[in-house]
């Protein structure tokens, strides 16, 4: 782990208590006020189609303020999954499943302080995830700076549909620091740091790794993957948003990630938003690259070759190029009945994934074991939604 990450980590854990105390103390000496999020309703349809996996479903978000200082929200979200991914085709059978997620939260503002608390419960046939999160943010330095401290904790249960007796916990804790800084009247700077600690059954009970096996015609066999029981991740990101000399914005950012599994990742993104009459048009590009986990291999030399075994393509070395385009149409900008305003939105992302040490075993022959062509895939992602402010 880089030294500067350790320094930041110390700063977060030791200074956070001091930070929170002073943020609370400032409640008595403030003038301008933080503002609650607007009352709104979002009706969204999402679709993902890539690598033999289709995921579709709705997301409904409603937010309403009350008693001047509070705003509550509820989000209903569903993933309908139909999977025939390369892993599934390699050693399992295509399947369908449904994941339902319910989130409930509350925001409270007092002077320059905003506090958020929320819980999320996700349910599917073989995975339960319960998460609670808390954050406190404070405007300071003439309201040019906003500092947020956040904590979230997840308690998950992993099951296996083909083994009724299998049930393992997988928990995480996340600590987050966010700073937003007004640099000029046209330029915003944001920084975020997050440390995540995972513990428990972190692998997938259905996923397998392959190893050389000269006793079978294919030349290789499969065994269940084995991950470490702990993982600590650090991510730091910055972002700039610039208001151009005409009414449009340019934005971009970078994130560095590393974890105790040996993965290091870089993420870059850049985008441009341009209004045309009642329309907003947005184009963006995102580049992601990572190196493999220490215990990842496309082909292990023999059965139980090492303590930890992974062949999850998300833990391999790969790069991803992602292109996005979207349009928003604003309507009822002067109000309409009980509505303050509304928008209709459509966003499309095209994602390309090029894996550098994950082979397409569907094209394997006994003579090419370990030398199969590398796997790559593309994905289409859509978001179509209506937002209503009231």
């Amino acid at each position, binding site marked *: 782990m880089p030294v500067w990450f350790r320094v930041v980590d110390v700063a977060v854990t030791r200074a956070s208590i001091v930070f929170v105390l002073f*943020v609370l103390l400032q409640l008595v000496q403030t003038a301008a006020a933080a503002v609650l999020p607007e009352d709104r309703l979002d009706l969204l349809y999402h679709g993902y189609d890539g690598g033999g996996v289709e995921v579709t479903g709705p997301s409904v978000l409603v937010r309403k303020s009350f008693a001047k200082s509070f705003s509550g929200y509820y989000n209903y979200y569903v993933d309908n999954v139909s999977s025939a991914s390369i892993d599934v085709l390699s050693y399992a059978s295509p399947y369908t499943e449904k994941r339902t997620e319910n989130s409930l939260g509350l925001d409270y503002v007092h002077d320059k302080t905003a506090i958020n608390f929320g819980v999320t419960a996700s349910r599917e046939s073989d995975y339960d995830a319960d998460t609670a999160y808390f954050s406190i943010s404070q405007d300071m330095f003439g309201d040019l700076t*906003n500092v947020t401290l956040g904590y979230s904790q997840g308690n998950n249960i992993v099951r296996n549909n083909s083994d009724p007796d299998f049930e393992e916990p997988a928990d995480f804790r996340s600590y987050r620091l966010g700073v*937003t800084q007004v640099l000029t009247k046209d330029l915003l700077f944001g920084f*975020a740091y997050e440390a995540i600690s995972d513990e428990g059954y972190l692998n997938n009970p259905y996923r397998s790794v392959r190893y050389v096996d000269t006793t079978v015609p294919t030349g290789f066999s499969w065994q269940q993957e084995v991950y470490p029981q702990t993982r600590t991740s650090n*991510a730091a990101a910055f*972002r700039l948003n610039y208001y151009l000399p005409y009414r449009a*914005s340019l934005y971009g950012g970078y994130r560095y990630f590393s974890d105790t599994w040996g*993965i290091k990742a870089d993420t870059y993104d850049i985008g441009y938003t341009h209004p045309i009459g009642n329309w907003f048009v947005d184009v963006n590009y995102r580049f992601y690259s990572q190196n493999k986990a220490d215990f990842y291999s496309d082909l292990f030399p023999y059965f139980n070759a090492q303590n930890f075994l992974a062949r999850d393509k998300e833990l391999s070395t790969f790069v991803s190029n992602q292109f996005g385009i979207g349009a928003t149409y604003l309507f009822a900008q002067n109000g309409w009945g009980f509505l303050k305003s509304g928008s209709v939105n459509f966003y499309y992302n095209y994602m390309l994934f090029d894996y550098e040490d994950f082979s397409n075993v569907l094209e394997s022959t006994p003579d090419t074991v370990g030398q199969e062509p590398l796997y790559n895939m593309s*994905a289409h992602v859509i978001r179509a939604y209506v937002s209503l402010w009231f």
Partner: protein
Amino acid sequence: MKRVIPLLALAMLSTACSIEPWVKPYERANLADPVMNPNRDPASSAYLSHVHDAREGAKGAGLVSGGGCGCN
């Protein structure tokens, strides 16, 4: 170092109310314009983050949206 950082934070915070903002409240119209916030719709942004988390090994510190825009 461990003691310096909290003290530094204390010093910064204790002067928080006395700093003269170099961008006045009436100069923040551009920063508050919706075109400046590509993640203005939370349900939509959360979904795309979910896709990234599912397809990539990295996670965390996403969007940098928690801090708001400082233009209240």
